[in-house]
């Protein structure tokens, strides 16, 4: 049961990451287009810089949980690797509960609040182009929730491993 749930959660995160990893190509396109417009037509865009940062921001935010699925976040496990498997699992559960969960839960809550304030004010960027930025803030909150989900999936997996 636990394993099924954990696998389902990870599948969702993988799918989300696979899709959003493609954002790198629109990012590349916008950056190159901006240079090209400036030199070929002497007409830089008013939106290039902002569009670039928006795509970049979403790209890595969506990847936070995705990277965790692949165990890609760097860690100093040279010491713990010496311990027996069971101790390692226990330690993973413990660090997850003590180090990861409290911060990620709070980040999820407060980023939702942050987005809520922005949506209420229908906030736009403080620039000439002035695109709405409340959707981006919603997505940022969503990404922290994804990270939380991935943390829960890790926890379930470790608890399951401990049981067997």
């Amino acid at each position, binding site marked *: 049961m636990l394993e099924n749930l954990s696998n389902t959660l990870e599948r969702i995160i993988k799918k989300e990451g696979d899709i959003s990893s493609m954002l790198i190509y629109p990012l590349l396109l916008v950056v190159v287009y901006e240079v090209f417009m400036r030199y070929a037509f002497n007409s830089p865009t008013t939106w290039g810089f902002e569009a670039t940062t928006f795509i*970049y921001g979403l790209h890595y935010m969506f990847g936070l949980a995705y990277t965790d699925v692949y165990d890609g976040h*760097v860690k100093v496990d*040279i010491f713990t690797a010496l311990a027996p498997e069971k101790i390692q699992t226990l330690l993973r559960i413990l660090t997850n509960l003590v*180090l990861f969960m409290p911060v990620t839960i709070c980040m999820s809550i407060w980023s939702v609040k942050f987005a809520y304030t922005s949506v209420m004010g229908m906030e736009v960027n403080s620039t000439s182009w002035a695109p709405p930025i409340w959707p981006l803030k919603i997505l940022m909150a969503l990404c922290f929730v994804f990270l939380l989900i991935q943390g829960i999936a890790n926890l379930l997996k470790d608890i399951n491993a401990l049981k067997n």
Partner: protein
Amino acid sequence: MSLEFMTVAMFATLIVAITLGHPLAYTLAAVAALFGLIDNGFSVPMLFEMFVNNSWGLMNNYTLVAIPLFILMAQLLDRSKVSDALFESLYVVLGSVKGGLGLAVVVVCTVFAATTGIIGASVVAMGLLATPALIGKGYQKELTSGIICASGTLGILIPPSIMMVVYGGLTGMKETSVGNLFAGAIFPGLVLASLYFLYIFIRCNINPTLGPPISKEEASTYTAAQKWAMTLKSLVPPLALILAVMGTILAGVATPTEAAGLGALGALILAAFNKKLSLEVLRESAYATLRTTSMVMMLFIGGKFFSTVFLSMGGGDVVADLLIGSGMNRWLILFLMMGIVFIMGMFIDWAAILLITVPVFMPIAMELDFNPLWFSLLMCVNLQTSFLTPPFGYALFYFKGVAPEGYTMMHIYKGIIPFVLLQVVSIALLCLFPGLVTWLPSIFFGA
């Protein structure tokens, strides 16, 4: 609790927490949260409002846009196998010299360091490509791993480099703009590469069993003219990329962020030329790019939380008062700061170290009247060392991941020590000849 105590306690807690093997970024955030709460009278809303604002700020940092683009560039280059051709031709050109294959590795890595902004890719690529050749010719295991780890790490120092991008983004100063850092890093990078080169050459000439030359027959498969033609031909693609990235920055066609985009586009075109471009390659490159980018950015988030709380507590002032207030000689203070970064580098990742130390050390260096660009480059060379220093060195782990059977971590640790000493020598050289850093930026940017 006194401020001094809190400052020490925060670092001590971090070090203990890190050894638990939990991802570094999350650990940094958790330690930051704990001390943030102690500092602000346990107001959870106040702390997390600050953290959320910081996370949002990172999403709007134009300078850092270069990071995913440089990573994409490295991914595409790796898959288009452009470094293989250069190594193969240098294999016969330099192979007949004592230690020649090692020298070939240094040259290939130096050239490719100027095209790619991240390490990892180089260590893994050269590990896979060159290790079998070196071992097959009887190179000592320790020396082999040292050569590949150290040379493969040059990419983080020789521009373009995401370390410089991060550094420039942190200081926001004209003197340490990404463009200036790039220009300033060229000579230090070349000095380091030359030191590696000389070391391998001298050591293998003293004791040829460490790195014997290839056989006469193998060396004479091609004529000298053929060898040079091959080498020059295989140099064309990397040189084109160097032109696309560093060329456009120095010639004023593009900002560093845009140059990263042009570099990635160049790598894409190169892959297409080599007939390595397919939907599959594009997909895989994108997946790998996202994983590496998010790893760096998660560290950025955690490191940012940590440095924010540290500065908010007044920890920066504590360290500054301690160092400057001590009345010590400024060079001794510099030595201490470099020592701290070096020791941190043995345990923590470079991005985390930058995020923690730059906001504290940079003002101290300025107050002591050190040239900010020169100081920044000392920091960067020092941080390049962090990839190599045991026990926690990225490059060493990457290499272990691709090393052939029979390689223990001990071989790698032993092999890297001489190269770490060379790093220290290079820092000393930069102190003796600061022009190595400041001359080129003054030519290009008048800084």
